[in-house]
């Protein structure tokens, strides 16, 4: 929907700054456009694509490396000179990942999904409410409170682990899903992010809604949330990733089979090569790829929604 508007508007690499398009050009009335302008336009497009493709290759490289490493033999993996393409595809790494002793991949999946989904949903509610309060509501000490929340992010959290361990132990939360969900429901990072987004939504809308007698909650639900959909989805993705990658805390407080999460399970499982007793990294990498696939699918699904953007016709910005 927005594609044809976006497509030509912004060209950061344009140095001369004369690549403006006229409506004339859009109508392909090429005759009236000087050759120079066409040349610049083409150059800008080439520059843009070259830049994006190079950057894409760079960010893609580790992903590529992850896939090919999962298909190498241990011997090839350990070779002094790394190979860019597996000499022989060793698909058995994948079956080895499923067979790893005591890994129980299905259970780990299920646990991670439960924790990921529940904590994401709850966290969204908590974050939206807090961000709304900071962005739209007026109350005494708002700025100080916000600064205080930001300040809590500034103390290195490594020291919190022991104290929090004792707290959840006293709550008798060890080896429950609660301990994996509740302590991390609030992220000041996300509250801050959403607040920034909420602040971008014009205040006039809010005042108009107030005149109409719309309640805060209804306004939040009907206007703010739809308008902030891309950010909310970004937060969803980040939160899901968090559940998928969390390691230190889950290992410490919920390391029984009924609650163990995927990353803990994978790192704990030892993939050893039967011949040399060395760690079989390719098999481990194959396991990593397996657990990554569902995440990738969720991602591709959500990407569409982030990129769809929001319609804001009729709203003065």
């Amino acid at each position, binding site marked *: 929907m927005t*594609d*044809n*508007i976006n*497509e*030509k*508007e*912004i*060209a*950061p690499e344009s140095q*001369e700054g*004369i690549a*403006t398009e006229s*409506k004339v050009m859009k109508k392909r009335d090429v005759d009236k456009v000087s050759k120079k302008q066409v040349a610049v336009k083409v150059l800008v497009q080439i520059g*843009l*694509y070259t*830049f*994006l493709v190079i950057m*894409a290759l*760079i*960010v*893609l490289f*580790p*992903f590529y*490396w992850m896939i090919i*490493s999962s298909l190498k033999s241990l011997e090839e993996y350990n070779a*002094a*000179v790394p190979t860019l393409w597996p000499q022989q595809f060793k698909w058995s790494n994948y079956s080895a990942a499923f067979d790893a002793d005591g890994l129980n991949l299905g259970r780990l999946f299920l646990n991670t999904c439960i924790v990921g989904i529940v904590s994401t949903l709850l966290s969204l509610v*908590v974050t939206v*409410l*807090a961000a*709304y*309060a900071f962005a739209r*509501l007026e*109350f005494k000490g708002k700025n100080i409170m916000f600064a205080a929340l*930001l*300040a809590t992010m*500034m*103390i*290195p959290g490594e*020291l919190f682990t*022991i*104290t929090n361990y004792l*707290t959840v132990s006293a709550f008798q939360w060890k080896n429950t899903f609660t301990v994996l969900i509740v*302590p991390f429901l*609030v992220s*000041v990072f996300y*509250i801050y992010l959403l607040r920034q987004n909420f602040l971008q939504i014009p205040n006039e809308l809010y005042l108009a809604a107030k005149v109409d007698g719309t309640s*805060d909650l209804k306004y939040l639900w009907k206007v703010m949330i739809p308008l902030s959909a891309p*950010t909310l989805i*970004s937060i969803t*993705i980040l939160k899901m*990733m968090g559940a998928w990658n969390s390691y230190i805390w889950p290992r410490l407080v919920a390391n029984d089979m009924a609650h163990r999460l995927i990353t803990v399970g994978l790192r704990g499982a030892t993939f050893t090569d039967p011949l040399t007793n060395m760690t079989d990294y390719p098999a481990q990498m194959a396991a*990593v790829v397996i657990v990554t696939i569902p995440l*990738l699918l969720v*991602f591709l699904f959500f*990407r569409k929604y*982030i*990129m769809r953007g*929001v319609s804001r016709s009729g709203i003065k*910005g």
Partner: protein
Amino acid sequence: MKKKNQWKAWLYLLPTLLIIAVFTVWPIINTIRMSLLKNYDSLREIGGASFEFGFANFVSVAKYKGFLNCLGNTMILCVVTVPISTMLALVIAVALNSIKFVRKTLQTIFFLPYVTNSIAIGMVFMAMFTMIGYAPGHEPASVGIINSIIEAFGGTRINWVNAGSGKLENMVVLVIYIVWNALPFKILVLLGGLQSVNKQYYDAAKVDGTSRFRTFWRITVPLLSPMIAYVVITGFIGGFKEYSSIVGIFGDGMGPAGAAGSLNTMVGFIYDNLDTNQGRASAAALILFVIIFVVTMINMWVSKKKVHY
């Protein structure tokens, strides 16, 4: 209306405050307590030891001869990586938003790093920069992809991360690694932000015949400024806590072989103390907190002037 909002606002904040109070504020209070007990250690406390009250931990942190090095490394990494990664992410996000052909494919590609395991990223860096089999009088078995490229262009290879490598080379590698790691998050946030920008501004700019370059600086950047401010401020907060990227490349020694600790950071120093001296670790954490706090306040002050809501 105003009065009503008072308690309503607190109600909205209640879940957040409850959780923060238990899982963040309480640990902070405990951190302050530990920082004031000389050489406090929780295992020794259980064993019945008592600890002298005072500021001895802060003094001993300041007296550490590697302290300035840790602080300097942290600052340098922060000041260099945050602007680079923010600019790069901004340009990528805007470029992605302004192309048509294979746009979706490219967008998808820029999302992939999220699902890439950090072990894989570490492995790639080794393939890029490490010389394998490097030693005096020995020709390395592999010089790494980057050195291969340098040699292909007639340059001499550089010792990036191996034994005896210089601090400048180490820092260059670290900066690339950190920027690489930080890019996906920033692109995601900025791309999300771009979708919320009102398209009418662009229509207006187009009618006025404004140049692309001016459109970028005068319209895109100001409209995105809340998100840019967010990315910069959180980037600095995260940057001051840099640690895992150094372990990722240089291992627990926090430096290349032969120069252990040369790349140590503040959080690295906190980890060094965490096992046996939580008192000193707490003091170091609080010192770092004050530094981050001051820098963030400066950031906030600047952004207040520049950010356009």
